[in-house]
C-alpha cells in the first residue's frame, strides 16, 4: 500500500516537473533566451519519441518470444538516419520552404494542393495511430497494476479503466496547453519539444539502470551474461530471413511516414544542420536503447516464475529482486515513453484533422469562403484543441473496447504497416516529377484496402472482425482472395505477406495510374518545386495578382494570423517593395509569401483556396501554363527570369507613377496653401475691421452693444492668434527646432487627460469611448504634453467626423517587440483609399472633414510623433477610421 502511494506521489511530482519544464521553455523562448532550445541535441532527443512504451516494455517481451527479431525495429530507422542525405534532408528542406504542417499537408501540397487527398491521408493516419495510442495507455495501466499486485492491495487502484482515463485526460490537457499556444504550427512548440527531450533522457537512463543492474548486479558481469544468453531458450540464431529483411524495411518506412515522427523530424525542425548531428546521435541512442534488451529478457526468463508476462520484465525483475526504487525509476521510464508518444501523436494528428477536415467543413458551412466574418483564429485553435481531445479519447475508447490484451500487443507492427502505405506516395512525390494526384489516390487506396484486408482485420483474431471462413476460403469463396495467401501464394509469413502485397500493389498502382493520367498545371508546378527543391529554393510564380485588393487580403489575413502578425507581414512586405504604409502591391511574390504564411495556420489547400477566392480564381497564369508545358529546366529558368524582370519594371513604373501623383497632389496643395492661409487670416480680420469701424464711427451705440462688439473683436483676435500659433508650431516642428520637455508618467493618465480635454468642448458627449485600462499601465518617459496633444487631436477628430449612428471610439494598446502601439479605431465609414494618402498633409480637409478646423491637426500630429521618435499613421482595414500611434521602445520605462 505504501509503495502504491509513493508511486502515485512520484508520478504526480514527475508530471508537475514536466509541466514546469515545458512552461519554463515556453517562457524562455518568448523572452528570446531560448537559443539552447534549438540545439541539435534537443532535436536528436525529440526524435526518440520513436521509442514508445512498445520499445520500453515491449522490446524485452519481443526478445523473450522471438529472439533477436526486435532489433529490426531499430535497424530500419538507423539506416534512414545514416542515409539522411538521400531523403530526410530533402523532406526537411521541402518542409521548410513550403511551410508544411503535417505529412497530410505535404502530400496534399505536392499533388496540386488537393484537400481530398489530405483527408484520405488524415483518415488513414488516424486509423493507424489510434490503436497505438491505446497501446500506450494500456502499458501505463499494466505497469500500475504490477505495483498494485506487488503491494497486495487490490482496492487501491483496482479500476484500471479509471487509471487509463486519468492518464488520457492529463495527456490531452498537456498537449492542448503546450501544443496550441500559437496558431502557426511552423512556430516551434518549445514546451512540447523540451518535455519530450527530457522524457527521452529519463527513459534511456531508466532502461540503462535496469540493464546495468541485471548484468552486473544480478548475473555478475558481461562474460557470465553472454554464457547465460547462449544457454537460454533464445540462445541460438533463429530468424526467418524474410521477416528480418521485410521488418527492417517496414520500420524504415514507418520511421519516415509516422505522423508523429514527421512532426518532430520535419515540422519542428529549426535548422537543417541539426540533421547532421542527429544522423549519428540518433542511431547511437537507438543502439544504447536496445543494448540491454536481450540480457533483461534472458534473466527474466531464468529467474521469474513460469508464465510471467515478459512484456513487464523491466518492472517485475527489479521488483522480484526487492529493488523497489529501481522499479519505480523503470516505471517512470515507461511512463515517459508512453506519454511522449501520445503527446506528439495527438499534436500531429490534431493538426491534420483540424486543417484538413474541420476547417474545410467549417468554411463551407459558413458559406462565405475567404470573406468570413469574425476571427478565424479562434475557430482554428478551438478546432485543434477539440481534435487533440478527440484523438486521445479515440485512443482511450479503443483501449476500453478492445479490452486490452493480445489484440493490442500485436498492434505495433500492424500500425507500422498501415502508415507505411504513405511511403510510395511520399517518395514518389519527392523524387519523381511524373507522380500525379490520381496516382497518389489509386496507390493509397489500394494499399489501404490490402492492409485492412490482409493485416488489420485478421489481427483481431479469428472471427472477431474477419470470419474464419473468409480466412480459409477467401472472400466470396474465391480462394485467390484468402487474406493471408493472396493469389494463391501460400506459406509466406502473414506479416511479410501483408507488407509485400500492400506496398508492392500500392506502389505499382501509384506508378501506373500516374503514368496513365495527366497532371493539372498546379500539380506539375508543385511537382517541380518539390522534386527540384534544391534548385528552386526560391519559387516560381503561381499567382497573377493583378486584380487582388491588398486591403481585402489584409482583412482576411488579420482574421487568420491575428492582427499583429498580419500587419507586421504586410508592413514588412510593403517596405520591401518600397511602398509606404501597410498595403503592399499584390505581386505574385507577395501572394506566394502570404499563402505560405496562411498555410502555416490553416494548411496548404485551404490557404490556396482562400487567396484564390480573393485574387479572382485564376490561380495559375498563362505564363505559368507555358512554363509548365515547357519541360526543360533552362527554359523555365529563362522565362522565370524574364517574368521577374518585366514584373520588376512594372513595379518600378507603378511606384514612379505613385510618386508622381503624390508630387502633383502636393504641388496643388502648396498652391492652395497660400490661398488657405489667406482665407483663414482674412475671415477673422473682416469681423475685426468691420466692428472696429462701427465702434469708431457710431456715436449712439448702447453700452451693451459696445461691450458685445468689443468682445467679438477680442474673440476674433484670439482666433487669429490660435491660427498663427498652429502655423508656427508646425513650422517649428517641421524645422526640427523643437525643445522636448521629457517627463515621466502613466500612459493611462495621458489618455485620461486627452479624453477629458477632447470631449469637454463638445457640449454633448456623443462619443462613446471603450478602453482596456489594464493594457494602458505603461510608464512613459517622453514629452507628455506633446503626446497628449496628439491624442487630443485624434480623439476630437473621431468626435467631429465619426458618422456612425452611435459613434464609438475604441482605444487599443498593444505591445510589440518593445514598441507600444496605440490604436484609435472608430466605427464610422472610415477614409477612402485616395484620401488616406493625403490626410497628413497640411490643410488637407477631405470629404466629410471639410467643415472642421484649419486642417493642420494631423500634420502637427505627424510632426510631433516624428520628434518623439515614433509615428502616427492611418491603419486600413479596421472597419472605421483608424489611426495608429507608435511609441518607440525608449519611451517605455518598463513595459508592465
Amino acid at each position: 500500500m505504501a509503495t502504491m502511494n509513493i508511486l502515485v506521489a512520484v508520478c504526480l511530482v514527475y508530471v508537475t516537473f514536466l509541466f514546469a519544464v515545458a512552461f519554463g521553455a515556453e517562457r524562455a523562448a518568448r523572452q528570446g533566451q531560448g537559443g539552447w532550445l534549438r540545439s541539435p541535441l534537443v532535436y536528436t532527443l525529440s526524435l526518440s519519441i520513436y521509442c514508445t512504451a512498445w520499445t520500453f516494455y515491449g522490446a524485452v517481451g519481443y526478445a523473450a518470444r522471438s529472439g533477436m527479431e526486435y532489433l529490426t525495429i531499430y535497424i530500419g530507422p538507423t539506416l534512414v538516419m545514416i542515409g539522411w542525405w538521400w531523403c530526410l534532408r530533402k523532406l526537411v528542406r521541402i518542409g521548410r520552404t513550403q511551410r508544411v504542417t503535417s505529412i497530410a499537408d505535404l502530400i496534399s501540397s505536392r499533388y496540386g494542393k488537393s484537400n481530398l487527398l489530405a483527408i484520405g491521408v488524415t483518415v488513414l493516419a488516424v486509423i493507424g495511430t489510434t490503436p497505438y495510442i491505446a497501446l500506450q495507455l494500456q502499458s501505463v495501466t499494466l505497469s500500475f497494476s504490477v505495483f498494485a499486485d506487488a503491494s497486495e492491495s487490490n482496492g487501491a487502484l483496482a479500476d484500471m479503466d479509471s487509471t487509463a482515463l486519468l492518464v488520457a485526460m492529463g495527456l490531452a490537457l498537456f498537449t492542448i496547453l503546450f501544443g496550441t499556444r500559437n496558431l502557426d504550427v511552423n512556430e516551434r512548440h518549445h514546451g512540447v519539444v523540451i518535455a519530450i527531450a527530457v522524457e527521452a533522457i529519463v527513459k534511456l537512463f531508466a532502461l540503462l539502470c535496469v540493464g546495468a543492474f541485471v548484468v552486473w548486479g544480478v548475473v555478475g558481469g558481461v562474460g557470465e551474461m553472454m554464457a547465460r544468453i547462449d544457454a537460454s531458450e533464445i540462445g541460438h540464431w533463429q530468424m526467418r530471413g524474410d521477416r528480418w529483411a521485410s521488418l527492417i524495411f517496414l520500420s524504415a518506412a514507418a520511421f519516415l511516414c509516422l505522423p508523429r515522427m514527421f512532426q518532430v523530424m520535419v515540422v519542428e525542425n529549426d535548422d537543417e544542420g541539426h540533421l547532421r548531428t542527429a544522423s549519428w546521435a540518433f542511431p547511437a541512442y537507438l543502439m544504447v536503447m536496445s543494448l540491454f534488451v536481450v540480457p533483461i529478457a534472458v534473466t527474466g526468463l531464468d529467474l521469474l516464475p513460469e508464465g510471467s508476462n515478459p512484456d513487464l520484465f523491466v518492472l517485475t525483475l527489479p521488483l522480484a529482486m526487492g529493488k523497489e526504487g529501481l522499479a519505480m525509476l523503470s516505471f517512470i521510464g515507461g511512463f515517459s515513453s508512453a506519454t511522449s508518444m501520445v503527446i506528439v501523436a495527438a499534436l500531429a494528428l490534431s493538426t491534420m484533422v483540424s486543417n484538413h477536415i474541420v476547417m474545410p467543413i467549417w468554411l463551407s458551412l459558413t458559406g462565405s469562403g475567404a470573406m468570413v466574418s469574425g476571427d478565424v483564429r479562434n475557430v482554428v485553435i478551438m478546432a485543434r484543441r477539440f481534435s487533440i481531445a478527440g484523438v486521445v479519447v479515440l485512443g482511450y475508447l479503443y483501449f476500453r473496447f478492445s479490452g486490452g490484451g493480445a489484440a493490442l500487443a500485436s498492434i505495433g507492427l500492424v500500425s507500422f504497416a498501415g502508415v507505411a502505405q504513405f511511403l510510395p506516395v511520399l517518395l514518389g512525390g519527392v523524387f519523381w516529377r511524373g507522380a500525379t494526384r490520381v496516382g497518389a489516390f489509386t496507390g493509397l487506396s489500394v494499399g489501404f484496402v490490402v492492409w485492412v484486408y490482409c493485416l488489420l482485420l485478421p489481427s483481431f483474431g479469428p472471427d472477431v472482425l474477419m470470419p474464419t471462413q473468409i480466412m480459409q476460403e477467401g472472400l466470396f469463396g474465391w480462394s485467390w482472395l484468402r487474406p493471408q495467401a493472396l493469389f494463391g501464394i501460400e506459406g509466406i509469413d502473414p506479416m511479410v505477406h501483408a507488407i509485400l502485397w500492400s506496398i508492392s500493389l500500392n506502389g505499382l498502382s501509384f506508378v501506373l495510374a500516374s503514368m496513365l493520367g495527366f497532371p493539372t498545371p498546379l500539380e506539375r508546378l508543385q511537382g517541380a518545386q518539390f522534386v527540384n527543391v534544391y534548385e528552386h529554393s526560391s519559387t516560381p510564380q503561381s499567382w497573377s495578382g493583378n486584380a487582388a485588393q491588398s486591403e481585402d487580403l489584409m482583412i482576411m489575413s488579420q482574421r487568420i494570423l491575428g492582427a499583429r502578425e498580419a500587419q507586421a507581414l504586410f508592413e514588412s512586405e510593403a517596405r520591401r517593395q518600397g511602398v509606404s504604409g501597410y498595403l503592399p502591391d499584390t505581386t505574385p511574390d507577395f501572394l506566394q509569401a502570404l499563402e505560405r504564411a496562411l498555410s502555416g495556420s490553416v494548411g496548404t489547400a485551404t490557404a490556396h483556396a482562400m487567396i484564390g477566392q480573393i485574387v479572382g480564381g485564376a490561380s495559375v497564369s498563362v505564363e505559368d501554363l507555358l512554363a509548365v508545358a515547357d519541360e526543360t529546366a533552362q527554359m523555365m529558368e529563362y522565362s522565370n527570369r524574364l517574368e521577374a524582370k518585366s514584373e520588376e519594371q512594372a513595379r518600378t513604373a507603378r511606384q514612379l507613377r505613385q510618386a508622381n501623383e503624390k508630387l502633383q497632389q502636393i504641388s496643388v496643395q502648396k498652391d492652395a496653401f497660400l490661398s488657405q492661409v489667406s482665407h483663414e487670416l482674412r475671415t477673422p480680420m473682416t469681423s475685426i475691421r468691420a466692428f472696429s469701424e462701427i465702434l469708431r464711427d457710431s456715436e449712439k451705440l448702447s453700452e451693451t452693444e459696445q461691450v458685445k462688439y468689443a468682445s467679438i473683436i477680442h474673440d476674433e483676435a484670439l482666433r487669429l492668434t490660435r491660427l498663427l500659433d498652429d502655423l508656427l508650431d508646425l513650422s517649428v516642428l517641421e524645422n526640427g527646432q523643437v525643445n522636448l520637455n521629457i517627463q515621466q508618467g502613466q500612459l493611462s493618465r495621458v489618455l485620461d487627460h486627452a479624453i477629458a480635454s477632447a470631449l469637454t468642448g463638445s457640449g454633448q458627449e456623443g462619443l462613446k469611448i471603450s478602453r482596456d485600462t489594464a493594457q494602458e499601465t505603461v510608464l512613459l518617459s517622453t514629452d507628455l504634453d506633446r503626446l497628449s496633444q496628439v491624442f487630443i487631436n485624434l480623439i476630437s477628430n473621431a468626435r467631429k467626423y465619426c458618422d456612425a449612428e452611435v459613434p464609438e471610439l475604441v482605444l487599443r494598446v498593444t505591445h510589440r517587440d518593445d514598441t507600444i502601439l496605440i490604436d484609435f479605431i472608430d466605427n464610422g465609414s472610415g477614409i477612402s483609399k485616395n484620401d488616406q494618402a493625403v490626410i497628413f498633409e497640411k490643410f488637407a480637409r477631405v470629404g466629410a472633414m471639410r467643415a472642421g478646423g484649419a486642417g493642420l491637426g494631423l500634420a502637427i500630429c505627424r510632426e510631433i510623433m516624428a520628434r518623439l521618435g515614433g509615428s502616427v499613421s492611418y491603419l486600413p482595414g479596421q472597419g472605421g477610421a483608424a489611426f495608429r500611434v507608435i511609441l518607440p521602445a525608449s519611451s517605455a520605462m518598463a513595459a508592465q
Partner: protein
Amino acid sequence: MGKRVLLIEDEPNIIEAISFILSRDGWAVATHSNGHDAVDVVLGAPPDLLILDVMLPGKSGLDILRMLREKLGPGDLPVMMLTARGQLKDREMAEKAGVNRFMTKPFSNAEMLEAVRELVET
C-alpha cells in the same frame, strides 16, 4: 421699409457686422448661412440685392450664382460676392458666372455701403 437685401454667409460675426451696417442705413436684411438650400431661399422670396460668400458649407457661392443665373434672367438680380481668398482666379470665375460686384474681405464699412447702394440704384 427699405429695400430687401439677402445675405448668405456662414461666419456669424461677419453676418452680424454686415447686418448692422446695412440696417443702420435703412435696408431690410435677411440672412441665410448654408449653401444647400440657398437657391431655394433666393427663389422663394427674391430680394433686391444678394450678397453671397464664396466659401459656403454645402455648396460654393459660385455654384449658387451659376444656378441662379440659369433660372432667373440676366440682370434680374444684382449679386455681390465676398471672398476671403482674394485670388485673381476667383474674381475671373465669379465674373464669368455673372457677378455684379466682387469684394475681397476685409472691406471697409463705407466701401460696402457704397457698393450696395450703387448696385440697387442702377
